[in-house]
């Protein structure tokens, strides 16, 4: 009744590797409730805050001064949920690693596949794919919901080729379409920002091997590091600020074509994405080395 009709292990072709481990990691990820809670928060926070913030901003347009009108960014309003989601994807990225260390099941995992870098790659692929898909779907849904809310308040798309001056002088509330300059890029990079943060937290998880420690470190990088940089002498802080992960995220999400206030303060969107990817890569590289060297 319990016969396994597979060939003898000694003659079974191939070997356990990335493909098998990805399926295993997906099963493990989808079979715990915390995953679904986190993903629901990303979607609800993304779409909900988009509607809320777009509604508030639309109501303020007629009262805004020149400077505020110049910063009016319908795309960024629609991606406000990112502020909450960045912590949620950090939790997701850390937990896929640290929950196994907390229970000791990392040893079961590494016994099933002793090639540790492959295990790390499989976990990273699974959590990265899940976060990217959910974050992108949420980013696009948030974008369209946000623009719909603005349009319901009478917002109109500015004519092609409009300048910052045109926006400030516009009698109607501005709204973006996905084809507006920078809009598609900003929406796509919002999802990429969350992907890179989840991978950053994932690497921290392998380094610290402790849920509370990893999440604290991740939150520290996002929230506490900017505070520390802010109290440094301004000659330092002004050159470091743009490299903070939170500001890299801002650079990826704002639509700079009509903006003035961020000029020179933030990196360009793609440079910011590259810099954050570099951070994540360095942390993951450290994780690979430590995972290989340490006892499980």
């Amino acid at each position: 009744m319990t016969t396994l009709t597979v060939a003898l292990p000694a003659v079974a072709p191939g070997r356990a590797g990335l493909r098998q481990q990805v399926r295993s990691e997906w099963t493990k990820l989808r079979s715990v409730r915390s995953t679904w809670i986190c993903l629901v928060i990303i979607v609800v926070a993304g779409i909900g805050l988009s509607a809320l913030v777009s509604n508030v901003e639309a109501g303020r347009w007629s009262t805004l001064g020149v400077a505020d009108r110049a910063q009016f960014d319908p795309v960024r309003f629609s991606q406000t949920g990112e502020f909450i989601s960045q912590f949620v994807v950090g939790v997701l990225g850390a937990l896929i690693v640290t929950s196994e260390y907390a229970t000791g099941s990392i040893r079961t995992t590494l016994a099933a596949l002793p090639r540790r870098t492959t295990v790390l790659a499989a976990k990273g692929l699974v959590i990265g794919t899940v976060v990217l898909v959910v974050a992108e779907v949420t980013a696009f849904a948030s974008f369209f919901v946000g623009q719909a809310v603005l349009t319901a308040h009478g917002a109109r798309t500015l004519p092609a080729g409009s300048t910052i001056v045109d926006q400030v002088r516009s009698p109607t509330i501005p709204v973006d379409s996905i084809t507006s300059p920078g809009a598609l890029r900003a929406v796509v990079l919002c999802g990429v920002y969350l992907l890179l943060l989840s991978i950053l937290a994932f690497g921290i998880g392998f380094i610290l091997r402790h849920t509370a420690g990893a999440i604290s470190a991740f939150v520290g990088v996002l929230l506490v590091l900017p505070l520390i940089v802010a109290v440094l002498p301004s000659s330092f802080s002004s050159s470091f600020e743009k490299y903070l992960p939170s500001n890299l995220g801002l650079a990826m999400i704002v639509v700079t074509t009509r903006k003035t206030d961020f000029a020179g303060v933030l990196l360009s969107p793609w440079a910011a994405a590259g810099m954050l990817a570099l951070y994540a890569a360095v942390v993951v590289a450290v994780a690979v080395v430590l995972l290989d060297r340490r006892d499980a």
Partner: protein
Amino acid sequence: MPRRGAPLVPSTHAVEPVPTVIEATGLSKAYGPTRAVDDLSFEVRSGVVTGFLGPNGSGKSTTMRMIMGLDRPDAGTVTIDGRRYRDLRWPLREVGALLEATAIHPGRSASNHLLGLAQSNDIPRRRVDEMLALVGLEGVARRKVGKFSLGMGQRLGIASALIGDPGVLLFDEPINGLDPEGILWVRTLLQGLAGEGRTILVSSHLMSEMSLTATDLVVIGRGRLIAETTVDDFIASNTVATVLARSPDPDRLAAALGAAGAAVTRRADGALLVTGLDAASIGDAAHAAGVALHELSPVQASLEEVFMDLTSGMVDYHGHVPTEAVA
């Protein structure tokens, strides 16, 4: 809960007996200043249950983790069928292990836990239900593992070890948390698996349990090898036959037995513990000396006592008296 009489896992392995399957050579491992395992060499053969015996903290779990490639030895090597663990191509189909029964995410169901394991080694999905049935957990397949009792967790751990139908099985204290019925079930299961030609290494700190389950023994204390033998030889060479003799005149009896070549110690209640003479010879000696005997009974030193003697001074954590769940 256990399905008594349920067939064991039939082997799909060639029952070609391999003399030595697990071979440890000069294994050493220190954690900081603590030498957990110290120049340990032993061999485990297929077809029998090998007991891995030692007090708590003697290095059994560390050794098992080194066999599994989880901990890196400071020195020495350990191979399975001549290969290092990390060189196994389908690890779960070659080696199954129960290391820590609680090492499962508490929010995951038993069947999803097993499914994840099966997928990692291309093991057919139906094997999950078969293993749950084998260990008697089919009724709680969808229940979260966090709600399991210690015994149920142990059963799930055994199912995890067997999921790939491996030829080599490592069990670290498998009867921990099991009720007497479960202990009997594990004992039968292990012997059945060994009978199919598999290689079974079972650790325990309970000598009496090993005497019931194992054929071969590897005994360690403080990370060092104390004995590598069979259970039968271990008992024969380490137990000394003692006879308890009671007489209204113990002084004369002791003198007579001493003259006959026996070693005699007197207990507080006046009874004599005699070694070196069997019960019949003691009776003869008493008769010849004209001393009345009120009691004459052989006393076997228990295996537990032998084990305690051998490992005394090698127990790192005192104040814990191993209690027997089974007689």
